[in-house]
């Protein structure tokens, strides 16, 4: 057989979150639970297409004036403007001062990639910091975008199961000038641990002093506390303090539009004259990557954000989702405490958003998967949305068993 150009290509390591999900799908155990992938589930354990989304899709389909023409390279402007206002607040001085620009992106990942390409290739930054731990893809994205120096800043304190604030401040204080600092706007993935407002102020102090560049990853606005303004506090604070910064937004979770890839990249500048050249460079980056973004998701979100009645309806949906998660957090903690599971479990309710860093070890996670067919990540991260009133006892039992019987 003729030899091939590609015979040297090695099998790539599987990406954990998808491998774990596959293990769940393959399992035939009737009590199986998927606590790995980050998608919302109803109390019946089913995906939830938001009623307001279905309603808007019907409207769009019935609208014969709509077609499938190309969006501009930087996307649907009505969407981007509304999304930026959602993040900063419509009356934020940065917005009213014309110092905010935003472009549509391929969800949060796409926003981060465009941001990284711009910061790396146009501004020639080469250093980025991310929290330890962070969403697995942060590192890959910046690496692919050409950053040569990617380092962690301390974040998760396994001992107290909370924020290692002093460690974080120390590491940021040692970061070289122009380092890009990736910050989770709220509902930190994977830990669920967010800084307090006082802590954010001190973080801002260091970033300002060291002339670092803040990049906010906002994938859960509204989804964390149920309140859009609450969840945007850190981003707004930084903008108000006069930072130049970027914020990426994902509408996968808070709109349940996972597979439509709808996101936004927001930039806050000091000098409005920079906006036009900056957009021209972003245009070149997007053009050489995918030409222009998909319109379906953008239309849906734009319709909702720009219509007061639909906007209210959507806020109701967010409260439903975040409310159910908070219920499950309470329930899980109560059960673990009732079972007398060794250790403290208040972090389950102190943490916020979709994920919880339970503190379970990789060995314990494996035990839970093997014995109970409950699938979580080896980091101990669980997706709270995978918990329902129907399986919460089973999950609590499994965690209790693992903590009691599996030690390192």
């Amino acid at each position: 057989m003729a030899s091939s150009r590609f015979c040297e290509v090695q099998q790539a390591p599987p990406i954990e979150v998808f491998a774990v999900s596959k293990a769940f799908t393959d399992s035939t155990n009737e009590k199986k639970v998927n606590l790995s992938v980050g998608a919302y589930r109803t109390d019946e354990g089913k995906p939830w297409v938001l009623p307001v989304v279905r309603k808007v899709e019907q409207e769009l389909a019935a609208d014969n004036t709509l077609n499938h023409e190309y969006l501009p390279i930087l996307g649907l402007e009505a969407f981007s403007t509304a999304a930026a206002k959602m993040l900063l607040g419509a009356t934020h001085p940065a917005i009213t001062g014309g110092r905010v620009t935003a472009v549509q992106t391929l969800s949060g990942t796409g926003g981060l990639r465009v941001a990284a390409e711009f910061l790396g290739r146009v501004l020639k930054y080469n250093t980025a910091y991310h929290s330890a731990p962070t969403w697995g893809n942060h590192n890959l994205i910046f690496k692919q975008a050409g950053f040569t120096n990617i380092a962690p800043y301390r974040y998760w304190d396994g001992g107290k199961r909370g924020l290692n604030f002093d460690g974080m401040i120390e590491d940021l204080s040692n970061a070289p000038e122009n380092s890009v600092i990736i910050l989770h706007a709220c509902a930190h993935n994977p830990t669920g641990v967010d800084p307090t407002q006082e802590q954010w102020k001190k973080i801002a102090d260091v970033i300002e002093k060291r002339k670092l560049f803040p990049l906010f990853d906002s994938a859960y606005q509204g989804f964390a506390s149920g309140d859009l303004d609450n969840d945007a506090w850190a981003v707004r604070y930084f903008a108000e303090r006069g930072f130049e910064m970027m914020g990426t937004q994902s509408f996968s979770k808070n709109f349940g539009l996972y597979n439509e890839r709808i996101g936004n990249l927001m930039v806050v500048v000091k000098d409005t004259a920079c906006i036009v050249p900056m957009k021209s460079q972003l245009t070149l980056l997007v053009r050489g990557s995918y030409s222009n973004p998909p319109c379906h998701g953008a239309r849906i979100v734009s319709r909702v954000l720009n219509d007061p009645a639909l906007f209210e309806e959507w806020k109701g949906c967010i409260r439903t989702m975040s409310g159910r998660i908070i219920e499950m957090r309470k329930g899980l903690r109560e059960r673990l405490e009732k079972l007398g599971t060794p250790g403290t479990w208040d972090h389950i309710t102190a943490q916020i958003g979709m994920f919880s860093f339970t503190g379970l070890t990789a060995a314990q996670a494996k035990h839970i998967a093997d014995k109970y067919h409950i699938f979580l990540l080896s980091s101990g991260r669980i997706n709270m949305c995978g918990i329902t009133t129907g399986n919460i006892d089973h999950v609590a039992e499994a965690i209790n068993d693992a903590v009691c019987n599996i030690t390192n």
Partner: protein
Amino acid sequence: MALTPVRTINNLIKNTTPSLYHVAARANSWWSGVEMGPPDAILGVTEAFKRDTNPKKMNLGVGAYRDDSGKPFVLPSVRKAEELILSQKLDKEYLPISGNAEFCKKAIGLALGDDHPALTDGLNVTVQGISGTGALRIGSTFLSKFFPGPKTVWLPAPTWGNHVPIFKHVNMDVQQYRYYDPNTCGFNFTGALEDIRKIPENSLIMLHACAHNPTGVDPKDEHWDELSKVIKERKLLPFFDMAYQGFASGDVAKDAYAVRKFLADGHKICLSQSFSKNMGLYGERAGAFSIICNDKDEAARVLSQVKILIRPLYSNPPLHGSRIVATILNTPELHSIWLNDVKGIIFPSSKQFNMAERCEGHNFSLFLNSSIWLNDVKGMADRIIAMRSKLKANLEKEGSVRNWTHITEQIGMFCFTGMTPQQVEKLTKEHSVYLTKDGRISVAGIASTNVDYLAHAMHQVTK
């Protein structure tokens, strides 16, 4: 807009001491060093067109199909597919990194034939991409990392402008082989063969499968046969860009001749496909990237690496467009109506019939219609071919003595008219006809109501 004092000072410093400028700039803003990027040639044309107040203005710049009233055309097969999808109330869960599996299967099946041995043997890696651009970018990214030959892509001269940055952004070089002959406004077969024979062995060569953009000039089948031989002799890896299958001749099999011939000749090709034009799904970004591998094991390894590259781009692709494509291609009736619609774009003399007539007596709730799509595609192709004929005929009627045969010989959405940049400028300034400087017109932008205006204008600037 008046310069702020800060910028005025910056400009002063910039003109005197460049290094000081950068220091001062950094002190004020992160972005002050950002230079203005070059404007996009094609979008610039559309912007100028929008500003023009002449009621007779024509936009022949951007490559998007228009119906005979000059309006965007949503294919009947697409509307039907969307209705069905909506009624199924499916969820919006993440697609896998590689995309919608049904879509991938049907897409490569459309290109090669559903029962092609490469597919039945599982030799293909096919992933969903953000339309053609995204598919090409997945390809360029994969090749820049894993292609064992020279990290250079050989492109036809000329080629779609965006091919260059797609490869340059992944740090690959670009070179050209002769393709278009400006003397004949046709294919430079001898020149292409000569240049390809000189390409270093084991290199990467890009080919437009059909309806070459920007020239509209395609090799004949015999030319493709010869190209295949020479490319094989040089041991080159062919990367086909197929953005117009069905849209060129109105026949999906005919338009795939080169791709299928190369496979039959034993080439293990790379292929990017776009459904922007042939399904009118421009803004939904439906495309696919494929590599034909040696065996199943290699295909699995290659797929695993491709997924690693997609993840840090955008994690997983958008569903909506891919679902429409899969629905159409999966349902025989919709499929053939689509084929007819596409053909109708090329030959509008075919009877255009309305949905109600077609639907009569059929139960569409489950049978969604790949045959409707084939009809739609034929419709589009038919209309374009008619506009080509009319334009040529009208130019002759105007009394032009130039040779305009290339207008009807070229194929697909675009026509390289042969007009010089000066003539183009005159055409725009004096007649409000907008096109790119290279003389390329989008035939899709011509309607039966303005083809004579265009012919008159073209004659005025070329006589």
